[in-house]
């Protein structure tokens, strides 16, 4: 699965933040998105995941091949770890959640409601969700927030395994995850200030 992004421009709140974004992500490769806060890493990931339309440019991979993980984990507080994972697995047409439980060491927590998990445990559950999507391209937005060192290593191994199986990953992060990865510095694509003529205020 190859992701080719050509001359992509995206906006946040009606203001263009990035333009001319060009990169290629091939199977087995991971790319780290770097850049200062507010540069548009999240906006780029949301645009690629299909949550907002690009202003210009094209993305080669269909949004059906992309699994997106945002700052929020999409967990229901009153459902248990197993119920949360099973729900997402069924939504994505998968049946087996055992590998995801194992990869993020959630077996001991399986019967606990998500509201009783710590922030780091919730994050692990949120990341385990990626494994039950069965999608080849992972788009991760700050995946290591609130993870301890051991969990970061665990997450690094999960991503490395995903890459070995022909997956790809685009990760916005500021820390080293312990595997070979290219770096894409988003600040190079910062949009120049300009007037937008067709700005629809109602939908800003």
């Amino acid at each position, binding site marked *: 699965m190859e992701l080719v992004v050509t001359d992509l421009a995206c906006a946040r709140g009606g203001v263009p933040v990035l333009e001319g974004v060009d990169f290629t992500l091939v199977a087995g490769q991971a790319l780290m998105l770097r850049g200062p806060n507010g540069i548009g890493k999240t906006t780029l990931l949301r645009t690629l995941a299909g949550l907002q339309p690009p202003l210009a440019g094209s993305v080669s991979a269909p949004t059906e091949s992309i*699994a*997106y993980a*945002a700052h929020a984990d999409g967990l229901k507080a009153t459902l248990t770890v197993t119920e949360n994972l099973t729900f997402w697995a069924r939504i994505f047409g998968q049946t087996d959640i055992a590998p995801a439980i194992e990869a993020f060491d959630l077996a001991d927590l399986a019967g606990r409601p998500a509201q009783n998990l710590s922030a780091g445990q919730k994050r692990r559950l949120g990341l385990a969700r990626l494994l039950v999507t069965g999608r080849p391209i992972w788009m991760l937005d700050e995946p290591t927030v609130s993870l301890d060192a051991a969990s970061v290593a665990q997450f690094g191994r999960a991503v490395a395994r995903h890459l070995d199986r022909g997956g790809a990953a685009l990760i916005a992060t500021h820390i080293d995850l312990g595997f070979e990865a290219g770096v894409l510095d988003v600040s190079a694509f910062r949009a120049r200030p300009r007037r937008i003529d067709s700005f629809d205020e109602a939908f800003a």
Partner: protein
Amino acid sequence: MIALLQRDLKLAIRAGGGFGLGLAFFLIVVVLVPFGVGSDSGLLAAIAPGILWVGALLACLLSLDRIFALDHEDGSLDLLATAPIPLEGAVAMKAAAHWVTTGLPLTLAAPGLGLLLNLPASGYGWLAASLALGTPALSMIGSFGAALTVGLKRGGLLLSLLVLPLYVPTLIFGAEAVARGIDGRDTGTPLLMLAAITLAATALLPFAAAAAIRINLR
């Protein structure tokens, strides 16, 4: 999509899910009315169809803002929008879950509460029938309103203002069907109109609601 329906039902009956809240509200409204208008049983019987329908409508409104707001807060809505199930289907399922947890209990409880308002005996069947036909439209129209206000903080009041005018036709035909049933007149027209509103809302509004959600997620 069945998974989504099952999850929403499960969430509704777990702690803090709000199941039964609408029903309790309905009960209280109906109990309060005789205190307000007095115990004249003739008067109560005359206003019973209208009061029961208005009560059901307000009870339905109570839980509308939860349909999408909670999923938006915890990020589930973003993930559902990128999931393989169509967002239109997700909207329809969430509206269905809302109906099963509010509209259906209201329909089942309404005849019992009709007793408190001295609803004439001939009206009970029509009350249940009109609610069964009309409440799905309330859930469907409500989820459209909830989709429009999904990104707003404390959008609940705005949601009520948006949705209540859209509930007017359902209310008119619903109360009319019960009133006609009590008088022994023909109830065919209002019941058919109720069914038409429900079918049209179910056919069209998932698309409108999904479009509104996509815009709100940008």
